[in-house]
């Protein structure tokens, strides 16, 4: 039911872990739902995402989308990264089963939350 890309990211997740001294942290999901994602980012002076990592409790789709979102976000400006949609993540993975589209594809929300967290600590001058 999962594409090869999903399985690849699930089996060989990219950017798994936690950024040291993160500039922003975003956690979404709920253990009761079976999905929790924690995205940590390092932002450089140009407001680009220099590093991004994830930790995820969840199903295959949850892990693969987390991995993919970090890949997509890396090197992007915060503005660009904020635009990464659920659909973009799913597309990059060659598609997700319909029932997984929403519930297990929270990674872009997690990224947005991490960016918001960064912003709340670095208000625009």
């Amino acid at each position, binding site marked *: 039911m999962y594409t090869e890309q999903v399985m690849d990211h699930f089996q060989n997740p990219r950017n*798994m872990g936690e950024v040291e001294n993160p500039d922003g942290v975003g956690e*979404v999901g709920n253990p*009761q739902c079976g999905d929790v994602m*924690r995205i940590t980012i390092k932002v450089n002076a140009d407001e680009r995402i220099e590093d991004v990592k994830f930790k*995820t*409790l969840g199903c295959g789709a949850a892990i693969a989308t987390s991995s993919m979102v970090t890949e997509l976000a890396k090197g992007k400006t915060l503005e660009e990264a904020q635009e990464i949609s659920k659909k973009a993540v799913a597309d990059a993975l060659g598609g997700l089963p319909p029932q997984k589209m929403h519930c297990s594809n929270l990674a872009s929300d997690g990224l947005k939350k991490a960016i918001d967290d960064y912003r709340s600590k670095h208000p625009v001058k």
Partner: protein
Amino acid sequence: MDKAIFLDNAATTRTDPEVLEAMGEWQGDNFGSPATLYAFGSQAKQAIEAARQHVADLIGADQKDVYFTSGATESNNWAIKGVTEALAEKGKHIITNQAEHHSILMPCGYLQKKGWEVTYLPVDSDGLVDPADVDKAIREDTVLVTMVHGNHEIGTIQPLAEIGAITREKGVYLHANAAQSVGHIPVDVAALSCDLLSLSGHKFYGPKGVGALYIKRGVRIVPLLHGGGQEKKRRAGTHNVPGIVGLGKASELARKNLASEANRLSTLRDYIIDKIEKNMDDIRLNGHRTRRLPNNVNVSIEGIEGESIMLSLSYPTAENARPVFVSTGSACVSGTLEPSHILLALGLPAELAHGSVRISLSRHNTREDADYALDSLFAVSERLRSMSPVYKRGSKQCASGSSGEGCDCEAAS
């Protein structure tokens, strides 16, 4: 691909080669339908009656009381809808429990919509129904108690004989859903005092798409499939001769090997449980430790989620070349947003239900298979826990509380 290790035998078992061979004859020159008169058809009829005898022998029934169906789902639907319809005059109340299979719960829900009252008895933390609760729940207008025998998910074996003694005394029919127990542990309709009993061929090395309903002589029940005069006019449809012959053969083989195989598997089951408990922290055995199907192991693993465990195990890697197939009570595979209602009925918080793994054994699984599978399970769990933002060894965080609150991840997303 290296040889896969199939540990999802509660879902379905591999049809025994002897069963396939027995079926083969009826798919070739002997394809005639048993309802017909000529020599051809009457051979098929004899084969069907021989199969009926084998099924009857396996459950201690009179062969006249065994009716062939398309599987336990049909048998369960027939038992519940057929009895309630036949006895609607007497009353509109039935009793079951919260940890039933969907093929029981959904017909019950259907009856509720049609004005029936259904009592869903609670189960304890091991999944057991208290017979005293059955006793208390029976009312003047109760017409049926339907109880699973062996639970498909957690393996707990209900005290059906005790429940049967109560229903028999009170004059209420007892239906046993024995889809998971028949062929695996001794099942005797007299000892259980049950009036109806469902079974399914593919759960014990027989073919898919064939099962049976035991209906004790005299039990009032309306047919579910009306039509031709097959099965003494109680279950219409051209007989699935190869399937029925296969079910008969599977019953014969099961009966022959029952004691030794149940013994071997119980030992293997306990070995697995022991090894998991010794090698893993923060896990919980689900279901009763001893009153348990010989082939069932179910554990919740804190901090990780079942689908990802199942998926990891099923995909071979350099370290784990043999795919291992298990199942889980996680919402992610249930097709709904809820984790297993059975695990929740035990009082487990949703987190632990999502993190459950069911290992169900068959006559083909060896200790070597189990060792290999467990090593994979340990490695996979370790890896997934290292990815988990919530898991902290020994914290028991997931086990604590929060049960009762639902998941609103759909709304949140």
